């Protein structure tokens, strides 16, 4: 399973490489396998964007990735396994992006939330094919994908906002907040407007803060985010 730990986003990968590289230099063959798998995942995202997952064939992936059919099956049993791996990889990348934005943001929890959302939206916008794969294609194959990132998103928000002692406990439900955000974002992605996602920052700041900071504070922060 060692080669499965790679897709943690550029930053996280670089950090991991820097740490690991000192003591355990990678073998060239290992690097080859890693990049093969990476190429397959990229090819899956590309093909899903072009013709949807249900119309994507192994032949399409093999062609986009420039590998042999045998190489594909060395990494994945079927195209479903491959699309889930691609969704997981992108989710990990987004987690990395969010964690870095959080680390760089100041001490005010409300500002941190804004910075993290902004960073994640930027990444979604710059990788529209992966965004479509994660938010639309993979959930059609298995709705479990959504549950996985929901628990991550809600957990992250909770830990960011409960870190600050000044936040009130309002009664809006965080799971409903996640649903609102998903509807708003998927609407853009499904319309092929992923590149415009960063414009949703004020709305998403509002949605994220509503269950924790309450209506008045959430509206004020949304206004600031414009």
């Amino acid at each position: 399973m060692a080669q499965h730990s790679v897709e943690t986003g550029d930053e996280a990968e670089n950090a991991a490489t820097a740490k690991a590289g000192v003591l355990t230099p990678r073998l060239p063959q290992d690097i080859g396998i890693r990049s093969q798998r990476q190429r397959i995942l990229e090819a899956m995202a590309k093909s899903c964007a072009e013709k949807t997952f249900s119309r994507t064939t192994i032949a399409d992936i093999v062609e986009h990735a420039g590998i042999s059919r045998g190489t594909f099956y060395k990494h994945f049993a079927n195209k479903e396994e491959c699309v889930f791996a691609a969704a997981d990889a992108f989710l990990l990348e987004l987690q990395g992006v969010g964690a870095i934005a959080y680390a760089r943001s100041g001490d005010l929890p409300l500002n941190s939330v804004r910075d993290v959302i902004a960073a994640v939206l930027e990444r979604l916008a710059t990788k529209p094919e992966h965004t479509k794969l994660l938010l639309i294609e993979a959930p059609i194959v298995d709705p479990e994908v959504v549950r996985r990132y929901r628990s991550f998103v809600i957990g992250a928000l909770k830990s960011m906002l409960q870190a600050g002692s000044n936040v009130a406990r309002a009664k809006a439900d965080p799971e409903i907040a996640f649903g609102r955000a998903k509807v708003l974002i998927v609407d853009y992605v499904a319309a092929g407007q992923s590149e415009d996602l960063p414009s949703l920052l004020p709305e998403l700041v509002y949605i994220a803060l509503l269950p924790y900071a309450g209506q008045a504070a959430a509206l004020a922060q949304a206004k600031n985010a414009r």
Partner: protein
Amino acid sequence: MSDSKDPEAAKLAPVGDPPSNLHLWKLPRGRHGLPRELVLQSQRERLLAAVVRVTAKKGYQASSVADILKEAGVGRETFYKHFKDKEDCFITANDALVADLEAEVKEAYDQAGSWPQRVRRGLASTLEWFAANPEIARVMMIEMGTVGPIASSRFRETFRRFTALLDDGSKSIEEVPDLPNIANIAGGAVFARVYEEVALGNTTSLPHLMPQLTFELLLPYIGEEAAARERDAAQAEEPQP
């Protein structure tokens, strides 16, 4: 949000007239107790009813035109007289179902009362409509998402038509918060929750979500305190078991 980048929206086929009384071809068949032949008169209606039944049974991707023909008891030629292909037939059936839901919701929403009261009635009729038709709910919410870009764009249009109702009505409240996309943020709470319950197979218990969804739907417009009052009113109206 502009639709200009949504080329599929322009390509949609014109919507046919929905069958005169949709309830008569809702699932499960035979519940109305009338001979099927009396009720399902036209071939077109038979095909629309059939595509919904077949999709509910097998899923959209797995069902074929042959399945629809068999279910409707009509010939292939007849099918292609009415519809371009399976997708066209399915989307037309979905449009008819949406029209039925929309008419019912509007009727509830348009009755006199304060705006939050009207929202409550509209929401209740939405949840009850889905709860009364769990298989149809599954076809409209879940299967519709697996069809393709035309269906997905139609789906988004439908959602926007429903949230536009909120935009219209909310003009009557004192001060609508200055928040972009407020109707989608409000309506998204209901849509996401209904979608999830339908996916989990809990469609028949949707009406029990009235208090919570009333609160979440109105919250962006009127704030916690006023939304909580509406939630309590919805709670009080809930039928006792």
